[in-house]
Structure formats: C-alpha cells, structure tokens
C-alpha cells in the first residue's frame, strides 16, 4: 500500500467517523434507530457539488450550504419520527433513503444516474488541498465533531436525549418535550452529515446517486453499533475499523466480504453493546 493510498483511507475513515458520530446523536443518544442516514450524507454532497459545478460557488459557501440544507432537511425528515416508532421508524428511514436516491437518479437537475462530475479541488486559505492536505483537513473536522459530541455530553441536551431514549413518558413527566428533542437530534445530526457530504464531494471530485444508497446507511449504522452506541470514541473506532478492515483483508481477496460479515456477526453476538460500549472488551482494557 502506498502512502497516498493510506492517506486516502484516512480521509474516508474521517468522513465515515463524522457520519457515525452524527448518527450517534439520533440513534445512540436519542434512541431513534435510523437506517437511512446516507440520505443526509447525499443531500450534503449534492448541495456542494451543484453549487460548485453549476454555480461556481467558492468552497466555504458550499460547506455552509451543505451543513444548513442537510440540517433543515434533517428537521423535516425527522418529523416522521414523531408519528412512527421502533421498527416502523427503521422502515420509514430506509424508505426515505430510497426515495432520496431515486430523486438524485431520475431528476435531471441532479445529474441523473451519471451524477455530477468536475467538482474543483477545495481551496482554503489560498492552498489547493492535495491528498495529504485533505487527510489533514478532514482530521481537523473530525476533531471538531468529536469536541461537539463531548460538549453535548456535558449539557442538558444530552440528558433530554437520554430521557427520550430510555422512557418517553417519563421524559414528558419531567418537562422534556419528546417531539422537540427528536427534532433537535435529527437537525443536528443532519447538519453534521451535511458536513461529511461536503468533504466527500470535494475528496471524490464527483458524486453519484449510488454513493448514498441504502447499503451505505447500513455501513454507517454498523460502524456505530460495532464501536459502541452512545459513546464518543466508539463511532470513530467503528469507522476506522470497517474502512481499513477490507483493505487489511486484501491478502485473502476472495474471502474478504465473507470475513467482513463474519466479524460483524461475531462482534455483535459476543459484544452486543459494542467494543467500546458498556462491558466492551476495549473499554475494559482502557480502564485498567
């Protein structure tokens, strides 16, 4: 593996860490299982791609637009969670993912099945970001996202989420508006996924509908659960592990996916709250 390749993997890992951290807010904190997170990711990426390619908008403005638009869409797509619960919600989020991808594919404005190509290199503070530059740049955003998660843990927002997750009726009884906190969760999470979308668009230089399909949502959820829902370090560990694992398994090329699936199954069976979750082996190792 060349250094450039490893740096690219670091960039991917950073982007997926941010996605897993953002899903963590909906699923790990507020307890609303979403299997459609790639939709927010895609909306962020398409926002940046369209603004940059079709309207020649500069980098910072595309970043801001991605975060804002994904956040607002998150707010609206969060509304179903007020109506439907549990497994119905899981299915509703899957459905949202499919509909969003279909819209990318079948509406000309979004470039159709061939997506949008020709996104310029990100230029910040007068520097064009190369492979190394982008790995560093995404790392900075990962640190910022992590700090944001840690901050949420400290303030009452987290307690409101936790209350909603553990018992909605009890939450209401202490003045937590369940609807309001679900909307908070989806909005913040959407905005963070929008950030990841912006990074993805500029890293790839192009966006395709299938980059944001249901299977990507599955990957994001798997990263989160494997690492440990509700923790801050877990989602990052999950994202790095599942991004590097297939590469590490390259030497047994033909059995790669098989092992990948098996590892997911085995970790979940023997570490159901994740490697860094409550009773996770890694959590214990760190404590000692």
């Amino acid at each position: 593996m060349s250094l450039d390749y490893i740096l690219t993997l670091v960039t991917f890992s950073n982007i997926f860490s941010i996605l897993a951290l953002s899903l963590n807010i909906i699923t790990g904190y507020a307890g609303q299982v979403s299997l459609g997170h790639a939709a927010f990711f895609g909306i962020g990426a398409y926002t940046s791609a369209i603004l940059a390619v079709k309207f020649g908008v500069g980098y910072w403005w595309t970043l801001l637009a991605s975060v804002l638009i994904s956040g607002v869409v998150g707010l609206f797509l969060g509304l179903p969670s007020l109506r439907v619960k549990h497994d119905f919600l899981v299915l509703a989020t899957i459905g949202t993912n499919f509909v969003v991808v279909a819209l990318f594919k079948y509406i000309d404005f979004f470039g159709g099945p061939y997506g949008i190509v020709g996104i310029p290199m990100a230029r910040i503070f007068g520097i064009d970001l190369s492979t190394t530059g982008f790995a560093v740049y995404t790392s900075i955003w990962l640190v910022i996202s992590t700090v944001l998660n840690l901050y949420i843990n400290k303030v009452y927002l987290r307690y409101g989420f936790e209350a909603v997750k553990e018992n909605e009726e009890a939450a209401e009884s202490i003045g937590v508006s369940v609807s309001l906190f679900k909307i908070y969760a989806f909005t913040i999470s959407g905005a963070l996924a929008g950030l990841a979308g912006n990074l993805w668009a500029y890293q790839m230089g192009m966006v395709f509908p299938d980059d944001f399909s249901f299977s990507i949502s599955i990957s994001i959820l798997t990263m989160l659960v494997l690492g440990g829902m509700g923790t801050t370090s877990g989602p990052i560990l999950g994202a790095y592990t599942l991004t590097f694992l297939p590469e590490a398994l390259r030497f047994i090329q033909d059995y790669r996916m098989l092992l990948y699936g098996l590892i997911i199954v085995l970790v979940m069976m023997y570490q159901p709250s994740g490697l860094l979750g409550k009773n996770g082996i890694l959590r214990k190792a760190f404590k000692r």
Partner: protein
Amino acid sequence: MLKVKNVSKRFGGLQALKGVSFEVREGEIHALIGPNGAGKTTMFNIINGFIKPTSGHVYFMGKRIDGLRPSRIALMGMGRTFQLVRVFPEMTVLENVLAGIGKRVYHSLRVFSEAVKNEKNVKKAMKLIELCGLSKHVDQEASVLPLGIQRNLEIARALATDAKFLLLDEPASGLNDQETKGLAELIRKVNKSGVTVLFIEHDMRFTMGLAHTITVLDHGEKIAQGKPEDVAKNERVIEAYLGKSMTT
C-alpha cells in the same frame, strides 16, 4: 390548586368517565380511589395530559391544562410517578435526579449551554437524594435497585422538577409492609415541605392513614368525597367498593 370540571371520556363505545368534578386544595394529600374499572387511571391520565377528555376541563393553578402536552403541564409545576416504575434505567440515581432538575431548561435554548453537573445542580440533587433516603445508592445504576428504592427515586426525580403538585400512580403497589410504611412517611414529609399530593391507590390501609381527603369513583362517576372517616361510612362507597373488598 387542581380543579376538575365535569370531565367525561369515551373510548369507542365505552364511557370511562361521566361528568366527574372534584377539587384538590393546596397543601392537602388527596386520594382518588375506586374499584377496578372505575376510571381512576383515565382520570389520572387526563390530569397529566396523556389523554384528552371528550368533554369538560381541568384547571391547574387557575390555568386550563386539558389538551396540553404532558411536558407543558410538567413545566407548570406538576410532577408525577408511574404505577409501573419508570426511572431512567441506564442512568445512575444522581443522574436521574439531575435529569429532573433540568426541567427549567428543557423548553429553552439553555439546554445547549447549561452544564448538567454544575455545583448548584449537584448540591440540589444531593439534598433531594438525602430527603428520599437514597444516599447509599447515589452512583448506582437505577435498573439494579430494588423496586421500593426505585419508587423513592421516582419521587426524588419528580421533586427535582420543583413540582408544587405531585401525582402518584398507585405508589404502594408491589411494595412490602416496611417499604409501604417508609413511603407513607416520605409522602408526609414531602407534603409538609409544601407540596400538594394526589394519588390513586388500591391499598385501603395506606390510603385511609395517609389522605386528608378522598374522592371515590365508581363506573366513571364520582360517588363520594370527604374525609377518610366519612368516606368509610358512606353507604354507596361501602356498597360499591369497600363492601366488595372487605368480604374478599
């Protein structure tokens, strides 16, 4: 403090409440009793906002509250506990109480800025924990505590919201004699500190010993209200409720 005016509730073909009115005065301990199916739980859920009455109104501290969300009603100063205990199982005792203290901020933008474990909040939480006899369990996860302790924790959490009015849904159910005695003592203590209490209960001994006023429901109608000793002598009550339970 709480006024229920002519409240009716219909579920499909079932008339659960028929024009019930009663009042809970500030500072008292008030019990709502009645045989199974009398409509107590329905009444309770209307008061705390989980369901809306078909007709009639509920006033809390002079303001109409029927139709408001439970969290809005909680904001106005009404705390509650549940028949099947609903503490936050994965939080510690301290965290449960701190969650209750957050009531002031959940409806404002301060949820984004106020630190949970600041000195003031922790101090207040520890005081409530002591009041409710939970000092030994401060850092234990709520799910591992015995039922009696969990019920005290629920009361502590409700008090943490600065509730002036406490709704207790069958507080003694599932408790042993000793725990029941402790609970009655705690409720009295809380009441003396200025909190009005309304509870529903099956345990007659517990109710008679604790309540200042009792309202009796039967088949969705109010059949009596008064002091425990008067209610105990009321013929309709004996017929509808006490008679049955005394003979069994």
